[in-house]
């Protein structure tokens, strides 16, 4: 369980997040959605101690500040929105960096299987910086997967905290990755993912938090939170939620004709 209460983030005299409460349960995919600049990345960074924050963040019932760095690394893998890499490492070398937090033996097997999972079989020896944007993103995801390879360790769940894991992927790979995440959750792990694609979110996520202007304006099961009013208010445009009889999950349709109204 990840619980964050009353999170406030101020950077350079500017309040970026205010009074945000957030929870994520193991066994579920928890999505964070909201417009550009609303504070999604900042929330994830507060959860992972990358920005100064006030409030309280607990992972598996223990304050994050009470963990040693390597203990935290054994509990959660993190994928930043933009990752960099210095020096010409190969793909497999990058993925193996995820194994550093104390999993011994079978290293290469795990790294190899993580690459298979994200559809990068055969890319092991390629130079990381020669991959395309989407391939690099999937390689980084494989690294995070390696880090928390077993979704449950010693009876406590492990976590994946991902900032836009499918942002630059084509639709086939989006589905592949979202499926990986869903499987990770089904096997007892917890997934927190910042998402932009509302339809993908509606399809895969169990629970969603909407962030707008630095506040969590809605929180709950996707079916409850994704409704016309909430979404339209959050994104300041006209969005309609629909379902088709043959498919249980909702899909969201922007009302193109009205888009220009809010742009004035």
């Amino acid at each position, binding site marked *: 369980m990840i619980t964050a209460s009353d999170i406030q983030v101020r950077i350079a005299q500017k309040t970026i997040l205010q009074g945000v409460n957030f929870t994520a349960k193991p066994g579920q995919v928890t999505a964070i959605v909201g417009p550009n600049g609303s504070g999604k990345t900042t929330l994830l960074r507060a959860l*992972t*101690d*990358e920005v100064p924050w006030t409030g309280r963040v607990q992972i598996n019932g223990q304050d994050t500040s009470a963990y040693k*760095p*390597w*203990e*935290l*690394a*054994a509990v*959660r*893998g*993190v994928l*930043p929105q933009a*990752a*960099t*890499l*210095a*020096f*010409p*490492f*190969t793909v*497999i*070398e*990058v993925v*193996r*960096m*995820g194994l*550093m*937090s*104390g999993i011994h033996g079978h290293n*290469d*097997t795990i*790294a*190899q299987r993580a690459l298979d999972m994200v559809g990068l*079989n055969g890319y*092991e*020896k390629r130079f990381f910086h020669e991959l395309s944007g989407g391939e690099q993103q999937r390689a980084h995801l494989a690294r995070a997967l390696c*880090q928390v390879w077993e979704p449950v360790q010693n009876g406590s769940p492990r976590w994946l905290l991902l900032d836009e894991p499918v942002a630059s992927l084509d639709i086939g790979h989006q589905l592949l990755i979202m499926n990986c995440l869903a499987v990770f959750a089904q096997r007892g792990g917890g997934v927190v993912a910042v998402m932009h694609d509302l339809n993908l979110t509606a399809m895969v996520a169990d629970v969603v938090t909407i962030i707008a202007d630095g506040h969590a304006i809605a929180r709950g099961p996707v079916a409850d939170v994704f409704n016309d009013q909430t979404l339209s208010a959050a994104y300041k445009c006209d969005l309609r939620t629909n379902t088709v009889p043959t498919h249980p999950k909702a899909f969201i349709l922007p009302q193109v004709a009205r888009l220009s109204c809010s742009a004035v």
Partner: protein
Amino acid sequence: MTISDSISGIAAPSDRRSRARQAHIWLALLLGVVSVVSLATGPTGTSLWGAIAKLLAGEPLTAMERVVLWDIRMPRLILGITVGAALAVSGAVMQGLFRNPLADPGLVGVSAGAGLGAILAIVLGALLPVWAQDVAGNALVPIAAFMGGWLSTIILYRVSTRRGRTSVATMLLAGIALGALAGAVAGILVYMADDRQLRDLTFWGLGSLAGATWSKVLVAGPLIGLAVIASLFLGRGLNALALGEATAAHLGIPVQRLKSASILIVAAATGAAVAVSGGIGFIGIVVPHLLRLATGPDHETLLLNAALLGATLLLGADIISRLIIAPAELPIGIVTAVLGAPVFLWILLRRRGLVDL
């Protein structure tokens, strides 16, 4: 999946790793060979082989042989090994810390800072009361060089790194400024120096292993040995740092501690090397670069290989410096510059495509 598929899939990742590990052995052997050549080379007619034959036969060495081999060539050999290892390792650690293959203590003013520390110690140390000079003794110059290197590394890091990202342009420019400042202060001190000190000082400009003594070895050796051994524990951390500070932290690396340790190691190794041998350039940038080309950037193997290759190359340069205008000898800094500068230019040429320089 066929058997050959699975073999190639598993063999692939370990390729560079096993090559890098084999390199430990080859480079150690090479260092051994070059060490013997270094012991056997010199302007006097003294023969290493003759001396060994005598020792094996149980005959005593002549006083000349003992002085040349034991008091002149041996400390020079050990100093060459330690200084070469120190320069290459501090280059590799600094490049890992700054996440940039162009970071090098010589290039970005750390050596200059260490040199300034050493000069301060030489000139102002003479102003200390005699008992304090006795106590501080030989250690004063290396310690001051260490402090100078440490301060300049910290200043450089503060100036050029923002939120875990290093601006290369800022780093290089700050390095130029630091080097100029250290040079200017050193220039002032030179005016204050007396003749004997002046002789000590000119030696820094050139960089040389001549004048190696056992007392220099005893002062620099332990400091460099400690720094090089400590650096071997940074491999994992520096690898993770290549992904950025935040990601390294998420991988369980105590980033602040890693950075402080790296800075201390660079300062200790550079400071000690500069204190005993002056400014020898290019080893710190050329050695890690060649190794990255050959065996990849994995710091877990790179650091030990850098120590071995750095020591080997510096000994090689030292041998050349003793032979090329024998019986006189060329300052080794000139040899490393003549050989290293073109390699450095070639590195820059290869990186031209990268706009982020």
